[in-house]
C-alpha cells in the first residue's frame, strides 16, 4: 500500500469511528438513573439522594437510621445542612461500584463524577466514597451522618457545626 493511500485509509477509518461512536452513545447512553429492587439498600440510598436533590430535607432525614436520628433532631439536621452550604448536586453524578456485606449491614461503594464548565473548558474528576447502611424493621437506612453524599458530622456534642 502506498503511503498516501495509507493516510487516506487512516482518515476514512477515523471518520467511520466517529459515526459509529456517535450512534453507540445515542443508543446505549442511559440518561435516567438505574432502577433497583424495592427494599434493597441501593433503592434506599437512591431514595435518599432523590430527596436530597429536591432539597426535601424532612424526607431525606427519614432515610437515616434510628441510631443517627437519636443523635440529631430534624431541626439540628436542617441547621447542619444550612451551615454546610449547597454542594451543587446538578454538577455531579453518583454511580454504584459495589455493595459489600450481608445480613443487616452493608457498605455501598460509590463513585462521584464531578463536572464543571462545558466544551473545551469542561473539567471533570472522580472521587470515591462509601455509605454504611443498616436494615431496620421499616427497610434499609443510612447509618452515618451525611450531607448530600459528603461524610460530614452534623455537630459536635449535640451542637451544630
Amino acid at each position, binding site marked *: 500500500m502506498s503511503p498516501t493511500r495509507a493516510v487516506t485509509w487512516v482518515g476514512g477509518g477515523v471518520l467511520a*469511528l466517529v459515526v459509529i461512536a456517535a450512534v453507540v452513545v445515542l443508543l446505549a447512553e442511559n440518561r435516567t438513573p438505574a432502577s433497583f429492587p424495592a427494599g434493597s439498600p*441501593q433503592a434506599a440510598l437512591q431514595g435518599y439522594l432523590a430527596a436530597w*436533590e429536591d432539597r426535601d430535607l424532612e424526607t431525606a432525614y427519614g432515610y437515616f437510621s434510628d441510631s443517627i436520628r437519636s443523635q440529631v433532631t430534624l431541626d439540628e439536621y436542617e441547621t447542619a445542612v444550612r451551615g454546610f452550604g449547597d454542594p451543587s448536586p446538578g454538577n455531579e453524578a453518583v454511580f454504584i461500584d459495589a455493595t459489600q456485606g450481608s445480613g443487616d449491614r452493608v457498605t455501598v461503594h460509590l*463513585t462521584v463524577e464531578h463536572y464543571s464548565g462545558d466544551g473545551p473548558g469542561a473539567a471533570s474528576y472522580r472521587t470515591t466514597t462509601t455509605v454504611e447502611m443498616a436494615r431496620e424493621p421499616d427497610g434499609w437506612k443510612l447509618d452515618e451522618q451525611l450531607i448530600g453524599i459528603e461524610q460530614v458530622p452534623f455537630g459536635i456534642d449535640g451542637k451544630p457545626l
Partner: protein
Amino acid sequence: MQTVRRLYLYGMSGVTLAVLLTGLNNLFVVVFHAVGLGRGAALAGDTSGDRDQLSLAIALTVVGLLVWTVHWLLVERSLRPENPASAAERGSPIRALYLSLVLAVLLVFGVLAGVQLLEHLARLLFGISPSSDFEFIQIDVGAALATVLVTGLAWLYHATIRRRDLAAAAMSGGGAWIPRVYLYGATLLGLVMTAINLGTLLRMASDALAGPAPGFIGGDVVRRGAADALAGMLGWGIVYGGHWWYATSLLRGEGWRASSERQSRLRVAYYVAAIGAAAIATVVFGWQSLSSVLGLMLGAERDFVSESALGSAVGPLLGLLPWIVAWFVHARWMADEARASEVPDRAAAVGRLAAAAVGLVGIGAFAGGAAGLMGLLLDILLGGNRTDAGLWRHELADFLAVGLVGAALWLWNWASLQRHWAADPEGEARSTARRAYLLVIVGVALLASLASLAVLLYRLLNAILGVDQFTNVASTVSAALGALLTAGALAAYHGLAERRDRALREATPAAEPGQVSPVPAATAPGPPASAPSVGAATAERTFVLRAPSAEALEAAVNAVRAGLPSGTELEERPS
C-alpha cells in the same frame, strides 16, 4: 527553503495530530462510559456532561483529522520514489525529531494509562475494595482504556513509518541518532520504573511478612501498594523489554543499521546512565537502611512507625536488590560489547566513563554527609544548641549513613580512575571523561562554597546587627560553615588533581600537523589507535562513485558513511 517547509509541515502535523488524538480519546471515553465500562449503575445526578463531551470530541476529531490529513499527505508525497529529494527527506533531522517526539509523547501517555488499567486489574486480583480512606481519586477504567487504544494505535502507525524509513536507505547524522535518543531514553525510563516498582513490591512483601508496627493505622495500604507496584512493574517492564529487545536485535543484525548501532555513542551513554541510576539508588536505599540501624544504635526515637524496626532496616535493602542486579548486568553487557567493538579503545573509554559517573554520585553523597557531620561537630565545638534536643541523633544517623555509603562508592571508583592514571598518566590526563569528572566536581564544589559563604555572611551580619537576639549564633552558622569547609576541601583536592593533569598535557603536547600523535586520545595501554587524533596527520584517496539514479547514489553515499570507522570521514567536493 526545504528546512522552512519541513518545519512548517512537521509542526502543523504535530499540532493537528494532538488535536485529532485528543478528540478520539474523548470520543472513546464517552463511548465506554455510555456502555457502562468503568462506570457502575447510575444512582443519582446528571450525566448530560457526556453529550457535551461527545459534541466536543466529534468537533476536535473532524477538524484535527482534516488538517492533519492535508499536511501529512504533503509530507508523505515528498517520500515518493519519483521525487529526487526523497532520500534527503527521509533522512532529514527534522523528520527524525518529529517522529521521535511523537513516539515519546505517545509512549508516556499510553504507558501511564496502561499502568492504571493494570492497577485496576491487580486490585481486583488482590480483592481490594474500590474505595479507600487513604485514596480519594479513583481510576477511570473507561478513560484509561481509551487512552491505551488511541495512543497505542497512533504509536504503532508512527513506529511503522520509522521502520519503513530505516528500511529504505542508510541514514547518517541527525536522521540516525535522534530516533536513537528516543529508543535508549525509553529503554532507560522503562528500566528505572521497572526497578522502582519491583523494589517497592519486594518491600511490600517484606512489610506484609513483618507485620505493621504497633499503632499503625494504614488500612490495606500494603496490599494496595503491592497491587500498584505489580502493575507498574508489568507495564514499565514491557516498555523496557520491548525497547531493549529491539535495540539489541539491531545490534546483532547485518548491514548499515547493525554497523551504525555497534558504533553508537548513545548506546554507551545508555549503559553509563543505567549504571549511574543504579548508583543513585544504592545511595538512597543504603542511606535509608544504614540510617535506621545507626538511629537504633544511637537511641534516636522512631516518630514515624509505618514499619517495624527490622522492616525499616531490611526493607530498603530489598528495594535495592533490583538495582544491584541491573547494575551488574548492564556493567557486564557494556564491557562485553566494548571488548567486541571495532571502535579503538572503547573498552578503556567505557570503563572510565562508568567509573566517573559512579564516582560523581558517590562524592555527591559523601560531600552531603561530610558537610552535615562537620556542621554538627562545629556546633558542639562553638557552643551551639543543635544537640540540646533529641533530633540530633536522627541528624547524626542520617549524615553518617549517607556519608559512609557515598564514601564507599566514591573511593572505589576514584581509586579505579587513579590506578589507570598511575599506569598511563599522560593518556589519562588527556581523557575527556577524567577531565569532565574533575571539572564537574571543582565547579559544583565552588558553587556550593559560594552559596555557603553567602549564607554564613548573612547569618553573621544578622547577628552583628542584632536582627534576632534570641537565636544561638553558633547554631545558625554551623551548617553553612560545615558545608563551606567540606566543599572548599573537595574543590581544592580535585583542583590540584586537574592542575597536575594539565601540567602533564602541556608537557606532552598533542602532535603537530604532519606528525603522528604520540598519545592517542582517550587511550589506555594497548595497541596504537588506527584513527587519526585531532591535529594528527591524515591520509586521503579520491574515488568516483556511480549509481543508476540520484536516489541510488544518495543511498550508496549514506551507506558508505554509515559504515566508516570512527575518525574517518567521507568528504564531498564540488565537481
